[in-house]
């Protein structure tokens, strides 16, 4: 099989303006992946499937990843001029001194949802190729193009990702919840999901359950006690 870099070059040659990005994997497995731009993803996917040399005819697995908003603390060294009173031989004198201070800047990196596709070629006996797509954010713009028209195997798994992560796949033929019921509103695999407070508290809880029990008690919520 071609390396991931070579595949990236092949995609860029075949699909103009593909906007494919190489995502390295620094772990020993070195399973690098390609990040597709949502706008050109279907065209790139068609190329990956139909190209004679690549022929990725089998979508084996697809999954979602939730990347919540990240708060990044950066330490920056700032040099400022500070006026100090120094005890000199001529008595107390005000002096201007350069002082280096470490300041912590906090910035919030917005989160996003990601769909990861694992492709194999049964014909050429190679794979996997990992491709990813990212949504613009986690709330109102959680749309990605559906790859079900390219690989039919994506249908149920895209429904599952829609169900558990809330990524809306545009162009999906039948986007309904698959595991949870239709009336359900949450997306349970998201990291900020709050479970319903229907826990059965044992008479003597401990550890994490004790914390939950105390929370349950303080909020006056519960199953009717």
């Amino acid at each position: 099989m071609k390396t991931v870099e070579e595949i990236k070059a092949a995609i860029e040659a075949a699909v103009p303006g593909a906007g494919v990005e190489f995502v390295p994997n620094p772990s020993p497995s070195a399973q690098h992946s390609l990040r597709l731009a949502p706008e050109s993803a279907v065209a790139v996917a068609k190329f990956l499937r139909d190209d004679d040399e690549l022929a990725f005819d089998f979508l084996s697995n697809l999954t979602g990843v939730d990347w919540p908003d990240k708060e990044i603390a950066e330490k920056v060294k700032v040099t400022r001029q500070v006026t100090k009173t120094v005890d000199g031989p001529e008595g107390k004198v005000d002096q201007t001194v350069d002082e280096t201070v470490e300041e912590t800047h906090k910035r919030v990196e917005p989160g996003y949802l990601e769909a990861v596709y694992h492709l194999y070629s049964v014909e050429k006996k190679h794979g996997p190729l990992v491709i990813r797509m990212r949504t613009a954010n986690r709330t109102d713009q959680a749309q990605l193009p559906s790859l079900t028209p390219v690989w039919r195997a994506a249908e149920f798994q895209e429904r599952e990702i829609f169900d558990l992560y809330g990524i809306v796949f545009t162009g999906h033929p039948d986007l309904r919840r698959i595991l949870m019921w239709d009336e359900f509103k949450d997306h349970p695999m998201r990291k900020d999901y709050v479970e319903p407070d229907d826990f059965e508290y044992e008479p003597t809880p401990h550890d994490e359950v004790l914390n939950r029990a105390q929370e349950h008690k303080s909020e006056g919520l519960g199953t009717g006690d």
Partner: protein
Amino acid sequence: MAVDQNLKIELGKQGIFVTTIEELYNWGRRSSVWPMQFGLACCAIEMIATTMARYDLARFGAEVFRPSPRQADLMIVSGTVTKKMAPQVVRLYNQMAEPRYVIAMGACAISGGPFKQGYNVLKGIDRYIPVDVHIPGCPPRPEALIQAFMTLQKKIDGQPLTGEGRPRHLDAEAQGEFAVPEQGEHDLEPTSNKGVWPVPITIR
């Protein structure tokens, strides 16, 4: 009027069989408990094994697994009850004719088991329907199911026809319908049926 046990044995030695309506009735009921043909998860495999030749549940008169709730006496809740499946299980229980019994088989059916802290699994079927026998285990061995079955038979045997402690189906006042939970926006509503499951009080 209860028969004196010693007299009964003595008469039996002489070839005279003495019984009461209650004994006869309970003997008939406990010897032909027909389970419902219905499995939810991996415990169902153990339930199937229990009915097969090696363990042979037919010895207890329970080989007839009925595919319709109307003809079944016993619901073996064998496996994980997900919140999506719970309304169906409760509805099936409601459709069974009295007298009806429930065996909650395995860790999931009695408490949610390894999925207890998850979002999608019901934390014990006894939140919605009255359970007669609980079997722990993940999954319980067929011997455990047979044990539960014998416990249920003992329970049936001890039920009087009239008065205090008579089974639900002989009591006009007893509850006949158990509310089917609705699938709400975040969880099942209500999270348990009142009068069926007492909410445990947390002691700290």
